Every structure is written in C-alpha cells, then in structure tokens.
C-alpha cells in the first residue's frame, strides 16, 4: 500500500534481483522472473534514452541501416523511450498474446516512466511477457508467442 513514488524508488533496487535476461526457447532472449512476483506488483521500469517523438523516424532508419534491432516505447505524443543503445533489462521483454505483465506510463514527481506490472502471480523461472499492442497495419508481422490465445499477427 505504499504510494506509487515510494514503490518506484524501491523498484530500481529490487528489479535487479527479481528479473534477469536469459535464453528464451521461443524468442532467443527474454526477461525471466528470479523470484515469485505477486499480481499488481511493479516488476521493472522500461528505461532508456528519453527522446522527442520527432527523432524516432531518423533513429529507426539509422538502426535499420546498421542491422540493429529497434527497442522503442512511446511514452506519450511528445516523448519516446529509446532503449536500443542505452537501456536496462526490460528491453528484452517479449510479446505474448496471453501475457503475464502489462505496461503503464506513470507520472512520478513530474517525470513520466514506463513501468511493467505483473498481471497475475508470476512464479520464479517464468518468462515475463506483455502485449505489445502494435497498431494495425497492412504489412503483417507474424506472431511467434505460441500461446493458445495467439492472434497470429503482432499488428
């Protein structure tokens, strides 16, 4: 029942011990739980470089030209967190159509943060996933989450 700001301050310390990046059978790499996490608990912040939205297209083109996978997360109309070159373990969290986590943009002391929360109780050793909620597009990207509720396409 701690206020959000206090929980967030603790998160920086606790997330290093509660989650880690390991090999994922489905996706190659993924974020995994190192201890049991309760439903609704803050798991990790999706941290990275905060950039203005207008810079995303240029960055995406640059990363694509170098064959670098893009890890970006929209905060709001004006800002995006780009974790491609600077970030934390959260950038490795994979998509699932039947996820065990969800993301929320939370404003704490005047700054917005993307925080991953547990949708349900997650047991130690489980891979953490959330629904990327890509916008609908004509060019489809197949989904490989392998869940029974799989929507077949990411977008």
């Amino acid at each position, binding site marked *: 029942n701690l206020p959000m700001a206090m929980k967030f301050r603790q998160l920086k310390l606790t997330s290093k011990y509660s989650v880690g990046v390991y090999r994922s059978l489905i996706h190659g790499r993924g974020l995994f739980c190192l201890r049991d996490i309760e439903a609704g608990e803050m798991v990790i912040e999706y941290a990275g470089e905060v950039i*203005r*939205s*207008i810079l995303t297209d240029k960055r995406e083109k640059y990363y694509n030209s170098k064959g670098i996978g893009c890890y970006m997360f929209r905060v709001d109309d*004006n800002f995006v967190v780009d974790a491609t070159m600077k970030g934390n373990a959260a950038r490795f969290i994979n998509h699932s159509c039947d996820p065990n986590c969800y993301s929320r943009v939370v404003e704490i002391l005047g700054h917005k943060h993307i925080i991953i929360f547990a949708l349900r109780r997650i047991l130690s050793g489980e891979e953490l996933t959330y629904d990327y909620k890509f916008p609908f597009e004509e060019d489809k990207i197949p989904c490989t989450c392998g869940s029974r509720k799989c929507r077949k396409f990411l977008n």
Partner: protein
Amino acid sequence: TVLLALHDRASQLKISEDRLAVTGEKGYSTVRATHSVTKGTWYWEATIEEMPEGSATRMGWGQDYANLQAPLGYDKFGYSWRSKKGTTFHESVGKHYSPGYSEGDTLGFMIVLPQNN
C-alpha cells in the same frame, strides 16, 4: 497586430506576456506569427535579446505544414537563417550565407511573392 501565436507553436516554447518575445530550451522547435501572407512583398525584424553559450536560433519564413517540433528549415515548408555561422537552411540542407549573428543583433527577413497568387 502581428504577434507570436499562442496556438500555432511548439508547446514547450515560452512566449512573453506581450507576445513579442520567445524563449526556447533544449532541442529546436518553432513558433509562428498570428498572421500570414500570400502575395506581395513583406518584411519583419527580430532582435536577439539573449543568446547563452551553446544556444542558437533559426528564423525566417514558414508555411502552414512546417513541422513545429523541428527547427524552421527542417522540411520543404520553411526557410531559415541560423545564428551559428549564418547558414541558411531549407529541407535540412545548409548553405553559407553570411557570418554568424548573436546577442544584440537585429535580423531582417524579406519575402517577395508574386502579386497575383
């Protein structure tokens, strides 16, 4: 009266109470005036009141579709004159024009449009 527009600007820019001065910070963004022109010859001036170390301006003429979250001269909808090195910009391409300008300078911008459209 031509003033800096309150609703035709990047929201992070600070407009003075008399709407004749603007202060920016961090990355480039744009504010436009309340009035536009479509034909004939027009001219406006601005004075640089303060230009701290590391800051710069790009001023000029821009169309409606110019991106306000970028400097003027970023796209095909604007033409600007930069304080640093006096470079002009259009479509993000810089060309040498004059020496640079700075605090205390007054810059003038003239546009010559056809009289009939």
